[in-house]
């Protein structure tokens, strides 16, 4: 396949993951906030999952349904289009982010509006819709509490489900006090008080909104129904009260039939917020006279998804239902937070989605497949059984392939030399003797802590034991594993 067709907002001066991570790890407040939040949710998720004795069967069914859907994606998209249209909706197709944003901007203008209310959507984060609309003079108001915190704080989201996970309650109170018009004077940092402030702040905007913009968690091909899963009620407001509703949905969000919700609504809330069910889920099919929007538009977004689809190993990332369980269990995410991933999709799933949607040409995207210890905790909790470690290793190979033709790499030189040495018993024995001798001379502390350039990169984040005085092979040839005749000094030969 050629270069992916995808694009996402490139965050200003986006550094590669190791550079961004170094800054994040040094921020002790950030680490404290992340540790607290991820540990809380991990324990609760485990409890919610343990309650269902057939969790693994649900997970395998979800995987099978998603894989099946991807294998017949063209058929199901056409079916969805036909059923949405039959129910009075309009379907648009967008190859890339700019195209999707232009479609939305055109629809907002056609509705005679200069602002929209938005329910949190990963697809519109991905396309940078808010920024694109702002350039067109259209204001976008984020209504999800965490998105509101991010928007008021001129900040970036750092988690798929809880974009303001990097902020604690005291920081949120400060943001509200400074930036929220009409914030109550005596606002405390009680979560309930902060939520009440957001309710009061957004109420008028909801009641007078002309255009709502949403994503969708699921789109049902069989019926043309869209499904939005949420907690606060801002999603219900956005999909119910405005006259015009525009939903921007990735082409992989499709499910074949209505009954599939019995699987995915069992898996998603428990994986995501550790609840048996989230407070609110809305479904709608086209337009319903006398109830809700009179004008409904579905924008189907590719933006690089078909590139991922063409990759036998990478395509499993398209099963993702954006629950964020993998973020919450990841030892890397827990320490660095979401911003270091330089993408709307952080964490383990982000490390396999972003490089596939955007390609591995930028240093930031080329570094993401390495942002993992490959411990496998993400795979274990994934409700659609995405083998994230497998995909990471696969993408690392792609990154290496992409670099192969480039300049001299010390790492490649070392591995190519190692290859030659390991193939020859004679060279290996010589190398082991040399290592044992030099190790004792050079590294007196018993650890190798710092190598000189060009090998310094390797020891920057690792140390290694000094080679033992005698290798196993040397010991074996001297003693025959201790089972032979009693040890005698000196070589036998």
């Amino acid at each position, binding site marked *: 396949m050629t270069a992916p067709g995808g694009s996402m907002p490139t965050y200003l001066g986006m550094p590669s993951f190791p550079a961004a991570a170094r800054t994040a790890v040094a921020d002790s407040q950030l680490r404290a906030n992340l540790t607290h939040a991820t540990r809380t949710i991990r324990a609760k998720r485990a409890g919610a999952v343990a309650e269902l*004795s*057939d969790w693994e*069967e649900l997970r395998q069914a979800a995987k099978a349904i998603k894989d*099946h859907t991807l294998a017949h994606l063209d058929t199901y*998209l056409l079916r969805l289009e036909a059923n949405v249209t039959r129910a009075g909706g309009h379907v648009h197709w967008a190859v890339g982010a700019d195209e999707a944003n232009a479609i939305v901007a055109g629809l907002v203008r056609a509705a005679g509006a200069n602002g929209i209310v938005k329910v949190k959507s990963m697809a519109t984060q991905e396309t940078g819709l808010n920024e694109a609309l702002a350039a067109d003079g259209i204001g976008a108001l984020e209504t999800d509490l965490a998105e509101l915190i991010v928007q008021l704080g001129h900040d970036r989201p750092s988690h798929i489900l*809880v974009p303001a996970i990097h902020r604690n309650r005291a920081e949120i109170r400060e943001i509200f006090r400074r930036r929220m018009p009409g914030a109550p004077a005596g606002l405390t940092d009680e979560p309930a008080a902060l939520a009440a402030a957001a309710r009061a702040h957004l109420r008028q905007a909801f009641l007078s909104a002309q255009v709502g913009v949403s994503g969708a968690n699921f789109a049902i091909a069989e019926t043309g129904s869209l499904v939005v899963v949420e907690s606060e009620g801002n999603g219900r407001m956005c999909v119910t009260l405005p006259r015009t509703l525009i939903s921007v949905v990735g082409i992989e969000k499709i499910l074949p039939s209505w009954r599939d919700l019995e699987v995915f609504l069992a898996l998603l809330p428990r994986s995501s917020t550790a609840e048996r069910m989230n407070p*609110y889920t*809305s479904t709608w099919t086209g337009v319903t006279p006398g109830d*809700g929007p009179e004008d409904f538009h579905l924008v189907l977004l*590719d933006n690089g998804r078909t590139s991922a689809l063409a990759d036998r190993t990478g395509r499993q990332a398209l099963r993702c239902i954006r629950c964020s369980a993998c973020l919450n269990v990841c030892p890397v995410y827990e320490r660095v937070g979401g911003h270091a991933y330089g993408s709307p999709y952080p964490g383990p799933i982000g490390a396999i989605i972003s490089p596939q949607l955007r390609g591995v040409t930028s240093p930031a995207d080329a570094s993401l497949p390495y942002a993992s210890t490959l411990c496998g905790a993400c795979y274990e909790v994934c409700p659609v059984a995405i083998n994230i470690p497998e995909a990471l290793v696969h993408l690392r190979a792609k990154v290496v392939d992409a670099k192969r033709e480039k300049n001299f790499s010390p790492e490649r030189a070392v591995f190519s030399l190692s290859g030659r040495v390991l193939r020859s018993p004679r060279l290996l024995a010589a190398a082991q003797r040399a290592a044992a001798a030099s190790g004792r001379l050079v590294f007196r502390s018993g650890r190798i802590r710092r190598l000189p350039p060009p090998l310094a990169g390797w020891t920057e984040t690792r140390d290694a034991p000094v080679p033992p005085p005698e290798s196993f092979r040397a010991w074996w040839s001297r003693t025959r594993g201790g089972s032979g005749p009693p040890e005698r000094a000196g070589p036998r030969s």
Partner: protein
Amino acid sequence: MSGTARDQILARIRAANRAVGLTDGGPDGAASGPRAEGYADADADADAAYAALARRYLRAHHDAAAHDIAALFAERAADYRAVVERVPESGLAPAAARVLATRVAAAPGPVLAPAGLPAGWLAELAAEITLARDEPPLSAAELDRAAGVVTGCAVAVAETGTIILDHGPGASGQGRRALTLVPDFHLVIVREDQVAADLAEAFARLDPARPHTLISGPSATSDIELIRVEGVHGPRTLHILLAGRDRGYARTR
């Protein structure tokens, strides 16, 4: 770039699935060229493969034959801070009257009563409670001034403590979606025979063509430190009256 976005995306999907050996033509796509739109067998192929998918999960996690499903629903709905009361059907009108009187005393305003709401449910309301009908449709601002709303539901789900509204025009009295969204207080009346054991049964009872709202407890958020807090944009109080023919009811009759 050629063709419409739609054509391009569909072509890329077909090329991708061929590239990994997943087309209607079998492994490696040997038997098929690019699939034309409206390809006669594509729908049938997809449907046959879909029907063959393994579904080894449980249809219900609590068997209605062995468990008191209504009690499970009451317990699970209460877990998420809905106020749940079980009442015999004959006690429904007095209970509704009591709940609404308390609400209106705390937050004065009219109570919304959608069309189709069984008249008997509100037969014993105190005279000072004003009922508002949604005919002609009330503005969003008017909905915002209501003390609360009282509705029935389409289905309830015991396993998850969920009520499902289909906003249907029928005798369940649920009203359009905005009626149960804008007011800050929602009284919902659930009949025991509306309680399904689990999601599979509940979804099978619904008509996908209708709009639906699944409600599990009052509005909430986990956005601050991943701690669940009740009360953001939807109704901050969800009061459920679960009406059934329990033993107490049989005796009093």
